[in-house]
């Protein structure tokens, strides 16, 4: 009943091919802990995400106006008084966005956390215990994977009208764990057969101890990337729900702003300031999270890093393109069969220049 997982786990960006975790960490593990941040993409992502979290905390206090307060300035373009213009009721758009940041972030992170916990529970259990547990849990996650999530979220939220942001987070969390569970199961399956796990089992370690202390630490990267991916999904779903007018009767969020912009004909009035900032806010948050995910991916699988300059000029004036899987053989000697010079400064990730030894062919 399962699709062969070996190939599938590499498909979706952010859940990409995971390198074999190295059980024997180098001695200076502590100094390398933040090496992940040194990745330019991940660093940008973390900084932007930090800004969003900051505004989620202080947003409602630094907002220049009460987001609900009406004024005489109806549908005004951006000005000194209203940096991002006003709505059809004269409400300040900037204040609405700042005020909405908190709801968006809280729902996104809460739903992401819940989906991650569910996926770890289900995925690792299925992968480690195997047998009947594996069959039934895999079937469960495959079912949730195939049923289109957004329509399901919409009808469940519409059926439970009296809930606030918490309920929305719960519903999104409950419907979006399946992909991560699947990836985690596949990775657990492969970890389970490693020697060090066999060794701890032979030593008589208890199952819960093996799972918690031997397996989970080696799944950290996958869990983190799954969490980030789910947060992206949760934020988009939450904003979508608000945009179609359900599940967000409490407080502002960016979807509510878009809902009013759409229903009050902002497009026909040319009121771009009403819907562009909210959309950009979503897009930048999503981009930041994706960048963090690329960072995690490239951290564990260096092959995926974008190569720098790959074209190299040889001494004879020909250009050679460095490629993964190719090992250009360069020689210091002026042997007649090659005119290439050693180029140690080339920054390709995987193509390693090898200095040819004299006399060897």
């Amino acid at each position, binding site marked *: *009943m399962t*699709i062969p997982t070996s*190939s*599938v786990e*590499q*498909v*979706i*960006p952010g859940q*990409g*091919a995971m390198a074999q975790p190295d059980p024997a960490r180098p001695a200076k593990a502590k100094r390398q802990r933040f090496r992940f941040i040194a990745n330019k993409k991940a660093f940008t992502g973390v900084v932007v995400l930090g800004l969003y979290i900051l505004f989620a905390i202080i947003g409602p206090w630094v907002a220049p106006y009460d987001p609900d307060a009406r004024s005489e300035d109806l549908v005004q373009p951006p000005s000194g008084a209203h940096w991002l213009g006003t709505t059809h009721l004269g409400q300040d758009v900037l204040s609405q966005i700042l005020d909405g940041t908190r709801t968006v972030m809280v729902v996104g992170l809460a739903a992401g956390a819940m989906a991650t916990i569910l996926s770890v529970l289900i995925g690792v259990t299925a992968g480690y215990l195997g047998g009947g547990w594996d069959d039934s849990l895999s*079937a469960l996650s*495959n079912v949730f*994977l*195939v*049923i*289109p*999530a*957004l*329509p*399901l979220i*919409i*009808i469940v939220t*519409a*059926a*439970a009208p*009296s809930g606030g942001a918490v309920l929305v987070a719960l519903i999104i969390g409950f419907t979006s764990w399946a*992909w991560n569970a699947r990836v985690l199961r596949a990775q657990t399956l492969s970890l389970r057969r490693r020697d060090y796990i066999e060794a701890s089992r032979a030593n008589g370690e208890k199952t819960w101890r093996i799972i918690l202390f031997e397996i989970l630490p080696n799944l950290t990267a996958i869990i983190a990337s799954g969490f980030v991916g789910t947060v*992206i999904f949760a934020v*988009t779903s939450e904003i*979508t729900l608000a*945009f*179609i007018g359900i599940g967000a009767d409490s407080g502002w969020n960016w979807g509510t702003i*878009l809902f009013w*912009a*759409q229903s009050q004909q902002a*497009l026909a009035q040319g009121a771009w300031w009403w*819907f*562009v900032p909210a*959309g950009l806010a*979503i*897009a*930048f948050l*999503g*981009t930041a999270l*994706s960048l963090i995910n*690329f960072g995690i991916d490239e951290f564990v699988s260096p*092959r*995926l890093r*974008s*190569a*720098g*300059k*790959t*074209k190299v000029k040889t001494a004879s004036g020909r250009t050679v393109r*460095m*490629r*993964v*899987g*190719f090992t250009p053989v360069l020689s210091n000697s002026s042997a007649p069969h090659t005119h290439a010079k050693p180029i140690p400064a080339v920054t*390709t990730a995987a193509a390693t220049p090898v200095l040819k030894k004299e006399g060897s062919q």
Partner: protein
Amino acid sequence: MKYLIQRILFYVFTAWAAITLNFFIPRMIPGDPVKALLSRFQGQMSSDAIESLYILFGLDKDKSLWQQYLDYWVQLFHGDLGLSFTAFPSPVSEVISDALPWTLGLVGVTTIISFFLGTGLGVLAGWRRGSWVDGLLPATTFLSSVPYFWLGLLAIFLLAGPDSFFPSSGGYEPGLVPAWDQYFIPSALQHSLLPALTILISSVSGWILSMRNMMVTVSAEDYITVAHAKGLSDRRVALSYAARNALLPNVSGFALSLGFIVGGTLLVEIVFSYPGLGFLLFRAVTAKDYPLMQGIFLVITISVLVANLIADIAYLLLDPRTRKEG
């Protein structure tokens, strides 16, 4: 063959799970909004229609849950999804079958174009790592983070207008009657251009990225080196050796992300007031038309399952390993 049967069994199981979910969700609604609607339309409904709504939403409290469940299945097999309140007095099945072709046309065509376009660009980006195509990656990341519907809003704002070629809403000119003739088809095509473009732009990036990553992984395989060593042209190695092998996981990824894509396109329909299932779902949600909502969810889920099955068959044709077991 064994593989195919397994997949079919799985989809049957999933369909059962979805229908069962659909059975339980309205029964968890606090209060009885359907009953309130029923009493509003009391005089205008036939007793048959009321009876079918009673079965669908479990309003008959005397019956056991199991009995309700059996009745529900019997009714589904008759194709009876109850009456729609927004399109009163049309039955839900009729309203949905009017909207379904629009969605199938728009989503089907754009999804297939986007898959092939994205996969092609991904092959290029993965093979020529470090060339200009890598510069597209940040842009595509940004585009895939934008919600589909916001891109639609932007497209309407920038491209559509009173005297623009692109209409901003609807599926065809208001005066026309849907038919296969020279007036209706061009108009329908013209109306679908902008929504299709929106879906294309936001969905293509995912394919580019996954195909690129697969290409990068595959390029390191030994058989690629062998192909190069044999002196085959770069193009042949890229297409017949690397791309062919990188394509498989992308096809199974295609099947898995269908549900997600369908969710996104429903929203594009809402923005463009396109007369498909998404817009219908939106109207049902705003009017609290529960029978219509449930019906749409069911139809969308079943369509996605069928599409998945088709993708699985394509996978079967592409991957000889799945055929081997006989």
